[in-house]
């Protein structure tokens, strides 16, 4: 047997021995393994090597980066307190959170986002014991009108202005100070900017009113508002700024209405 042939046989035996003992990883584990690489490339600086939201630059980030170990995600399409769907996570990764340190990763391949989500699901025990919530059913939207905006203003004053004030986030609770579940000081959204961290459209506003924001004082509407009333509040919010779908006419209607009385000047 020539040297080359002997070497080939030894190599084949070696490869066989090594591969025989290696159990193939399930697809989810393979995705997660690749996702860890994605995480270490794009996420680790803020979210940290231990996924605890304490990365190198986290101290300069306000709001603080998410601590993935707890499995609490602020923005989702599911009811308050439930895990988000993978589509919810993908949306945040793809679009980022406006005005925060979380940038949009639309340039990444869909497979990269899929993989990093698979990795995120390994970071909290919640994902092993709970299933994502059922997405909130969003009822059909009626086109915003002067009436819906006016009614929305009344509901806003009764339910939202304690924190959001006149829409700029200057409610009495906000002035007193709000903290999230991670102990960070947070401020209510300024709804007059025409864009939220997560929300862009009236449907997004609806979801935030109906589902609240996990880990923050922003509650879900629950039984306090009917679906039609949620839309009315959404239309009023839409009329406070240049949100997608907002019109100059709607904004004029909102401007002519008296501001919610809870606003702190």
């Amino acid at each position, binding site marked *: 047997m020539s040297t080359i042939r002997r070497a080939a046989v030894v190599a084949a035996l070696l490869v066989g021995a090594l591969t025989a003992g290696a159990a193939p990883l399930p697809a989810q584990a393979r995705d997660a393994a*690749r996702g860890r690489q994605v995480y270490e490339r794009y996420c680790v600086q803020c979210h940290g090597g231990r996924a605890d939201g304490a990365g190198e630059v986290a101290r300069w980030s306000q709001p603080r980066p998410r601590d993935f170990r707890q499995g609490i995600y602020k923005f989702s399409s599911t009811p308050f307190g439930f895990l988000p769907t993978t589509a919810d996570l993908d949306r945040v990764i793809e679009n980022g959170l406006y005005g925060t340190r979380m940038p949009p990763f639309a340039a990444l391949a869909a*497979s990269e986002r899929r993989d990093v989500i698979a990795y995120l699901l390994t970071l909290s025990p919640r994902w092993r014991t709970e299933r994502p919530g059922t997405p909130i059913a969003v009822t059909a939207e009626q086109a915003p009108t002067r009436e819906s905006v006016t009614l929305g203003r009344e509901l806003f004053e009764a339910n939202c202005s304690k924190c959001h004030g006149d829409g700029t986030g200057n409610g009495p609770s906000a002035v007193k100070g709000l903290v999230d579940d991670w102990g960070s000081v947070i401020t209510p959204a300024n709804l007059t900017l025409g*864009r939220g961290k997560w929300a862009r459209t009236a449907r997004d506003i609806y979801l935030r009113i109906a589902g609240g924001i996990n880990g923050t004082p922003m509650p879900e509407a629950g039984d306090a508002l009917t679906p039609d009333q949620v839309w009315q509040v959404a239309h009023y919010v839409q009329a406070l700024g240049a949100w997608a779908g907002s019109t100059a006419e709607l904004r004029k209607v909102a401007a002519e209405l008296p501001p919610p009385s809870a606003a702190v000047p």
Partner: protein
Amino acid sequence: MIIRHEIARLSLLIGSVVGVRSADANAHPAPGRPWSAGDSATGNEVYAAVRAYERGMESRSAGFSAGGSVADIPAFARKYGMKCSACHLAVPVLNRYGQAFKDNGFRMKNGTDDLRANDPSYWPVFAWLWKDYEIEAQRVGGRTVQQRGGFANGALVFGGLGSVSDKLSFRFLPTIYEDGRTFLDHGWIRYNQAFGTDWLNIKVGSNSFDLHTLSSPEYNMGTSRFAGLYAYSVPGSVSPFIMLGANPGIEIMGHDRGSRIRYAVNVFNTNGAPRAHCAFCAPGVFARVTQRHDFANGFLRSVQVGAFGAYATWPTGPDTSDLKGQQRFGGDLEFLLGSDVLPFRVTMMGLTGRDDRELVPTATQNPKFNAGLLQLEYVPTLPLVLYGRLQAIRNQRQAIVGRPDDFGDQDYQMFGVRRAVELNSRFAWVLELSVWRQKIKQSAPGGADLTLNNLWVGTHLIF
């Protein structure tokens, strides 16, 4: 009006500095060369062209290596709190995310791009310090005629770039060499998302074309000097035009949201034009389109197809009259294999060029050439890259009838390794080792082939 005035001043400054540098590179023979000016005219012509090209590339590589990509932007890491490897496949090669960031005018488009929205301590500046060591052996006809080595190219880059506001991005990039020379290459202002669309961004100033090699920052440090198909000129050409360089002018570029489909069109004045204060003494146009497709599963992760073309002019008359043209057309194909994050990248590029014969003194016909490259990069771990490139240039038709068909043909092979040590989000230390071999047919006196063998070690400290 003030802005226009400042842009004009900036263009003049860039034009004059680059013009002086180019003239200097062509006027002085390389030190220690074994042949005198009285040797074979044709051989010296090519040899001089090669050396001038090398010197030009050396000086330009300084500008390139400090510019053109996000490679030079630890300032971005500071501003956005991300690691260098977030945007770089391996510094300075851009990944998908870095390409999109660059296409967006160095913006995240997330409401945090405006300087006023950032921590007051943030300044959009960076510093880059580099030094390299090179050994070169020249062989003619199989015999080593010269060998030399030493430290070179020590320089400090202290520049600024980024976004001033959501609409305005900028770049300013002076380089200061050890011997006191200064060099200003790229300098531009970009208006982002005209009419609110990503498909229309307008850049004014001196900047690189949108080439797949990122105008050589991809091979920054020493290896950039031979990122050379884009820089090739037919033997004896008087035009200094190279697609690889920064040319003053206007760029219109656009892209979709993920930078999967992109285009760029440049209207420019050829760099080094004899009258730099003349806005369009040597006008030219460049365009490139690319499309990328990502795959959800499988070994083939993505494919990108690109096509480009350029038409540049150069005056052959006593002043700026009698413009003569140069054409370049080509395509490139890029495959990412194996992994999205740690891929094996394969790039192929083909190019054909044709110059007007008036650009080559004593020419009797329009010269033509073809060129191609195969480029391989493997990233086994972050942030380490192993790379290699094979490159060939073939003259299809010589400018002067009777010259050998292969006169001036080139073959080039390069292999190297680059490691970027990311000390933290503010500092990086790049180390690179490469070896290359370049063979130029019949360029030595007497018609012998000239072969250059190089070993290059370089280091950059980036803040």
